[in-house]
């Protein structure tokens, strides 16, 4: 996506909520190529509220990924492996 000129953009979007839903479907990788093309090329670059929403959605996803994933304690992983191996032996 290129950098649109804010002064030429709409400051209000009558379909803001529907657009947000579409935006999420696109970011979830569930939109058709046509939906994607139409929304990203025709709408996003001329609509300020949706443009902002896009960046917000992306930022939240990044934050979730960096802050909300914890690895399993190694002890627990070893424990599970041992239990299954014992199970196999029995």
């Amino acid at each position, binding site marked *: 996506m290129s950098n649109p000129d804010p002064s030429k953009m709409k400051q209000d979007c009558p379909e*803001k*909520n529907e657009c*947000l*839903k579409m935006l*999420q*479907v696109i970011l*979830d*990788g*569930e939109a058709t190529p046509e939906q994607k093309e139409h929304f990203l090329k025709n709408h996003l670059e001329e609509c300020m509220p949706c443009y*902002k929403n896009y*960046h*917000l*959605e992306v*930022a*939240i*996803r990044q*934050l*979730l*990924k960096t*802050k*909300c*994933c*914890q*690895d*399993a*304690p190694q002890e*627990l*992983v070893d*424990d*599970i*492996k041992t*239990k*299954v191996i014992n*199970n*196999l032996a029995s």
Partner: protein
Amino acid sequence: MELEENSPKQNYTEAEKQTIFHGEFMPHINSMYNFAYRLTLDADDAKDLLQDTYLKAYRFIESFQKGTNAKAWLFRILKNSFINDYRKKSKEPSKVDYQEVESYYNSEEVDRQITPDLRVEALKDMIGDEISNALNALDVDFRTVIILCDLEGFKYEEMAKILDIPIGTVRSRLHRARNLLKEKLSEYAKQMGYKTA
């Protein structure tokens, strides 16, 4: 995906079972632990839930078809174990009637109220536990869809199978969940001194 249901039973040798367990199940253990922890919100319960799930997965390994999605299969077992064994005794407030919650959040009324004007700059300053706390504060059904989609990258169709709900419900529940998450994040942003218009 089915466990104890009418999926065709496979016939694996002990060696094959081992290969599947170590090669296809164990690689997902960190994601599975994170899911268990985010569901129970308790490190000890998460350990028990993870262990139960992996032992169950091993016990029912012949219901798993090689080459199918092991991660989704495991997540579904974990989610069912959580509902059956942990949700009752967990510290969650008494089980919310999900229908009620969902119809409330699906009303247009709420859509108009929840338009948090959260800014990317505010998110950049959330370097502590804000997002984690915001996620944990969501009702477990909303928390779950965010974990499956945004943390684990499951497709809607996979989520529908893991959760036993229609795809349309996955989509709408996700939308609500994200609105609620943004609402929580806006509260933090406000506390951090960001003005929300």
